[in-house]
């Protein structure tokens, strides 16, 4: 649904995006990267809010910058907080519905406001809204015309835990029923709940693409680290070193930290080793196969 070929973008002599290519299909894809990695620029390129200096961007087969008709099928939750302060939430969403050419703009607006749990009859202007309410109004205006492609730039900012859960569930559902949802967010444990497909950018380049578990598996230069608690730490440590998948074991405040370069065989080896050592396996916890670790290895310093 989205095709990006060798796209570069520079502002003056600053390179925001350099030579990036990827495709995005239906479902939820997370666009990740440190601040200044070019994420926002990439999202704006996908929406046609700016043009690539080089390369091509196609959304649903059309050029997002030159073809306003495409916007009938695209929804965006922008990063900036500014909204039309003098309008109420309902007027703001109804305006969007109207400009999208919907038959019943007000009915669509009311429906969209219910989805984000905003009261359509609350006539107060948005200048009096809290950050969380303004954010939900922005989401409502992006959903009101039932778009096929949805771009979300930090959509959960300012929302409380319950609201975050509600919207995560909503975006996941939108992704699962065939829409293409691109989410940019810094809160990785929430991104994991959207799905596992990620695009990681760093210094304007694409650092990795795909299911982050598989990306982690590709990192064979980074042994998997697990924490093990047991009633006989030294014995279990010795037994584990016997297993050839184990590269290192460290004993620290009554827990074992085990590094393995073949996590699959280690999983099968740990129970037998425990039996041999007569040790009880109280806790076995992988420490670095979550998205946060994958991100840090790809982008962080060490």
């Amino acid at each position, binding site marked *: 649904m989205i095709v990006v070929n060798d796209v570069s973008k520079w502002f003056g002599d600053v390179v925001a995006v350099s030579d990036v290519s990827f495709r995005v299909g239906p479902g939820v894809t997370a666009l*990740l*990267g*440190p*601040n*200044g*990695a070019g994420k926002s620029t990439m999202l704006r390129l996908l929406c046609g809010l700016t043009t690539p200096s080089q390369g091509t961007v196609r959304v649903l087969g059309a050029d997002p910058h030159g073809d306003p008709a495409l916007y009938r099928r695209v929804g965006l939750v922008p990063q900036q907080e500014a909204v039309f302060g003098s309008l109420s939430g309902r007027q703001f969403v109804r305006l969007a519905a109207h400009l999208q050419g919907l038959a019943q703009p007000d009915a669509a607006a009311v429906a969209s406001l219910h989805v984000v749990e905003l009261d359509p009859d609350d006539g107060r202007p948005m200048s009096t809204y*809290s950050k*969380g*309410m303004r954010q939900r109004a922005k989401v409502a205006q992006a959903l009101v015309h039932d778009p096929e492609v949805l771009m979300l730039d930090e959509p959960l*900012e*300012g*929302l*409380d*835990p*319950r*609201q*975050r*859960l509600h919207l995560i569930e909503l975006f996941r559902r939108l992704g699962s029923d065939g829409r293409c949802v691109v989410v940019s967010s*810094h*809160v*990785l*444990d929430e991104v994991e709940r959207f799905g596992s497909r990620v695009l990681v950018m760093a210094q304007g380049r694409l650092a990795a693409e795909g299911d982050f578990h598989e990306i982690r598996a590709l990192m064979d230069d980074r042994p998997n680290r697990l924490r093990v608690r047991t009633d006989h730490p030294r014995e279990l440590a010795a037994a584990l070193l016997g297993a050839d998948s184990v590269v290192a074991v460290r004993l620290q405040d009554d827990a074992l930290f085990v590094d393995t370069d073949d996590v*699959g065989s280690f*999983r*099968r080896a*740990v*129970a*037998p080793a*425990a*039996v041999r050592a007569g040790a*009880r*396996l*109280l*806790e*076995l*916890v*992988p420490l670095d196969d979550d998205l*946060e670790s994958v*991100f*840090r290895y790809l*982008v*962080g*310093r060490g």
Partner: protein
Amino acid sequence: MSVVRGTVVMKRWGATTALSGATFTIERGVTGLLGANGAGKTTLLGLVLGLTKPDGGSLEVLGLDPTTAGPRVRERIGYAPEHDALPPDVKAHDLVRHLAEVHGLPRREATARASDALWHVGLGEERFRPVGTMSTGQRQRVKLAAALAHDPALLLLDEPTNGLDPVQRESMLDLIRRIGSEFGIDVVLSSHLLEEIERVCDDVVILSGGRVVAAGALDTLRRGEAGLVVEIDGDVEAMATRLRAAGLTLTVDGARLVIDGAEDVAADAVRDAAVALGIGLRRVQRRMATLEDVFLAAAS
């Protein structure tokens, strides 16, 4: 002696009731302040700072009553607000020194402590650059340094990781943990990111509808019934039937097995069953409720 003590605190803004009888204490160390939007968190912070007066009940902060000894209380509090707006053309070091002076430090001491505070939050020579030229991450650190420079007894942080990317977020959370432990400054962290609160806070206060619905040490709050959560690399059903045969009661939740009863008995059974079936073990962990479960249960 608790840092902050509130008894049946009431506060109304015109027609809406922001706090309807909140009773709580904030103990030493790092305390998480949680609540839905509009549950009264911001109002509570304002009351602790003595910016507004409660309509009922009483509040004691650092042993003083903020309604009468506002300035003396605020002198000992460092407050880092949620927005990261700062004067763009002022150098970070000048800004932090100025705020230290405004909190009562003499000029010479304020200059030295400003420099220390900026170094502690991890800003090197860029602390002499105008704040406007700094990244979101650096600006959040400047705000934290400004709240630390005058050696507060209590640090109020409102969503300190807002706008930070994962790597910056990680180092900010480490810094907050160090402030609560090494620096010996008590911290109240108001945030919506429960996973961060779990990583940094010793205890939490959960507000809902203007009242405290749950409070206490995180570990006690999260302690669910005894049991083990196990994820395996193979046939879940086979494992389940074998464990039931060994006399354990358990439920299967997708790829997870949730085993009730004593952890040590369950652990041994799981180990032996894995060896017997030649199945790999992905994860074995004590069953604990997440802060999210606690929050959703309390705030509903």
